[in-house]
């Protein structure tokens, strides 16, 4: 029944009906390492040059943004690819008018899959400045909901001392199609001790370990890491063997069949890395992607269901991190990357997912606690929180429910596994050394967990 309904909606006449029902055909999002096609405009509200410096570092030509000063906003001569607003130094409420004036013409002229990127100070002092800081978030979220045709807006809080090299990977990620399904979000970037230049294949000669790599989002994470130059170690349960082998061979990595809940899982990952790539080899990035769901309403959740989810999604990575961080051969390198997968369910809660939400919220707590602890070793710790992503798992949700999930975000569609993978790729980039302790939602600005 669900399938029939789905077929009806996506058939020619069905699409017409769907349109009448208020279900517009979703925009095809710009994806990959592709910059906006239209011109990029930049403006600074208080004289900070960080935005324009970073664009210059990236080699992106930017013109001055148009500013609205009347009833009719000025029109950009061509569809605008992106607007970067450097709003650092904003401390007074009236200064927000500058943001409005820059945004109004840009939103009007924004090309499909265009970008608005707002830079703001992370640390402010004074009551009004705090109000301004938070106001920016409200504006960002609203603009995200008003932008159409796959255009997105995101807000980056910048810590003191952050330079263009620290910010470059973030700005590049946001401008490019890699951030297609990241919308209405805000996170923080800080200064880093050592940062690499932004490159096309930033992970060349680096080892990336991905758990749960055999299929779905994990396979896509491994694929993107390999595309970005990494040697991937694909980890999945022994039962996933055939798909794991096929993917690994395609990516030219090595496969490790491993139950991550085994007590020695971290040791075995390190041993595999040391044995395949030499005792001097270290893991550049560990992506804790493996996860399971055992959904039931809390009243129906027994201890086994509870334990299984918490064990796989949270406890296992805690244990693996201990082994990988103890300096053993094949462990995580200094200046390395730890990435976990949280979930909008963990942020907002979700009916029938108490165990899952616990584990995923736990991931958020873990990231926040571990990041400062490992900052001294140059290791960053981050998480993505996917919203509705089109996978085998979400394909099992009944159609109507799925259609609701899929549509209730600012982009009017579900994300693809590659959107999660690209966001992780951004964390993995050696140039992202200044991004740590962050949880970035890849949800198309889903209503849930806002």
């Amino acid at each position: 029944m669900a399938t029939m309904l789905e077929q009806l909606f996506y058939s020619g006449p069905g699409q017409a009906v769907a349109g009448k029902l208020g279900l517009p055909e979703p925009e095809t999002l710009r994806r990959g390492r592709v910059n906006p096609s239209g011109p990029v405009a930049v403006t600074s509200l208080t004289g900070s040059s960080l935005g324009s410096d970073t664009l210059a570092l990236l080699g992106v030509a930017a013109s001055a943004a148009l500013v609205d000063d009347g009833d009719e906003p000025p029109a950009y001569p061509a569809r605008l690819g992106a607007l970067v607003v450097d709003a650092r130094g904003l401390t007074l409420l009236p200064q927000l008018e500058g943001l409005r004036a820059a945004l109004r013409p840009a939103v009007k002229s924004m090309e499909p899959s265009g970008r608005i990127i707002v830079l703001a100070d992370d640390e402010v002092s004074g009551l009004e400045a705090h109000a301004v800081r938070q106001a920016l978030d409200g504006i960002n979220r609203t603009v995200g909901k008003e932008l159409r045709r796959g255009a997105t807006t995101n807000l980056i809080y910048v810590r003191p001392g952050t330079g263009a090299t620290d910010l470059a990977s973030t700005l590049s990620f946001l401008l490019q199609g890699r951030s297609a399904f990241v919308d209405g979000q805000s996170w923080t970037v800080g200064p880093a001790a050592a940062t690499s230049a932004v490159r096309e294949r930033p992970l060349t000669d680096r080892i990336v370990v991905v758990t749960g790599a055999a299929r779905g989002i994990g396979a896509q994470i491994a694929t993107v890491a390999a595309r970005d130059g990494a040697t991937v170690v694909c980890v999945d349960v022994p039962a996933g063997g055939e798909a794991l082998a096929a993917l690994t061979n395609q990516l030219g990595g090595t496969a490790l069949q491993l139950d991550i809940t085994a007590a020695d899982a971290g040791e075995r990952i390190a041993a595999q890395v040391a044995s395949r790539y030499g005792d001097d080899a270290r893991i550049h990035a560990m992506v804790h992607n493996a996860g399971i769901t055992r959904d039931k309403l809390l009243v129906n959740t027994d201890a086994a269901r509870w334990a299984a989810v918490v064990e796989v999604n949270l406890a296992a990575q805690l244990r693996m991190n201990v082994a990988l961080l103890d300096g053993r051969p094949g462990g995580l390198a200094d200046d390395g990357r730890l990435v976990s997968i949280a979930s909008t369910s963990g942020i907002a809660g979700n009916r029938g997912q108490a165990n899952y939400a616990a584990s995923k919220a736990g991931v958020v707590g873990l990231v926040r606690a571990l990041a400062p602890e490992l900052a001294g070793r140059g290791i960053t710790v981050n998480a993505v929180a996917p919203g509705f992503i089109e996978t085998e798992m979400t394909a099992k949700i009944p159609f109507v429910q799925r259609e609701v999930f899929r549509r209730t975000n600012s982009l009017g569609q579900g994300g693809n596994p590659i959107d999660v993978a690209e966001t992780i790729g951004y964390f993995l980039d050696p140039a992202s050394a200044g991004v740590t302790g962050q949880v970035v939602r890849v949800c198309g600005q889903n209503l849930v967990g806002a």
Partner: protein
Amino acid sequence: MNAPRSAVIVGGNRTPFVKAGGAYAEASNLDLLTAALDGLAARFGLAGRQLDEVAGGAVLKHSADFNLTREAVLGSALAPTTPAVDLQQACGTGLETVIYLHNKISLGQAEVGIGAGVDSASDAPIVVTNRLRRAILAANRAKTVPTRLAALSAIRPAHLMPVAPQVVEPRTGLSMGEHQAATTKRWGITRQAQDELALASHQHLAAAWASGFFDDLVTGYLGVTRDGLLRADTSREKLAALKPVFGGVDGTMTAGNSTALTDGAATVLLAEEGWASANGLPRLARIVDAQVAAVDHTAGDDLLLAPAHAVARLLARQGMSLGDFEFYELHEAFASTVLATMAAWESAAYCRESLGLPDALGSIDRDRLNVNGSSLAAGHPFAATGGRIVASLAKQLHAHGSGARGLVSICAAGGQGVVAILEAV
């Protein structure tokens, strides 16, 4: 002078083994072997790599699969410029491919290669009758239409019946089970002893699976993730309740203490020791030496006792004794094969008369025998058994510690035996 070269086992990969006609019923030898090679390539990062050679084989082989291993390489993730050879020595095939590569590597003719074996009893070649084959060949030879028609007119409906492969020894007309039944009787191997061995095989294999021993030795295939013949819950009572299938009504050999027809494929990655370390590959165990032997079952010798002879010669050459091993892998074609082989080594009379030794070769510690299970529990896809054993033993030896030695013994159809010594690096 060049440093002595030695071949090491880097690791292995196999499909889970399943009963013939089961989950792999639709899979051919080629499919199974390709899957096993792909799993190995993934485990060791060999995708796109050109290896020096892949040696593989199958016992039940279609004539169309004359280049089975090469075709599997072409279908796999390995570089298509990797050459391959088909070898066949009945159930000794898998071990023989490993020995072949060991020899090439030791001689400097290769640095890295794969020994492999596959068998699908589900995909056994069904052939046409001799009469039909000859009529068709005659028709193909015919130069004129009338002679061709005349040749084809020799075909009778009965000639069109397909012929299933013979599972008997061609020169004796006896199946392997019938031969082994005679051996079982001759050596006085009891039903109870056979069932005990079968039970141990299942228990050991089940424990190995439970402990994750096979996590880096097996890659799932067609949704199967564990050996299908394994009965973790079998018991003395269940085994004792089975009816004899060989040796008549008084026979002691049952479906429980004999191997079943099995589908599966197994591979072993070998490399020159220095090359393996330079290329960041594990070095689990060296192949110390190997030996083949044959008995004359067409004159009444015990068909499956050739390994007893091969081991005697191998130990003599190496100046070792039967007790010098941490682990023993005696292929369980039948429980009674293992028991009769051990009985032969313990028999001073047999060792003197048949092996030419001054006294009994000795006995082996049963606690070191087939510690991760063997063919009774895992199944026995003929040519794949050698690869299964070598990879598992190499891992076991490596875990035990440097210098640990293991003995592999595999009996084969035609009264042959292939044996080898491995030593942990």
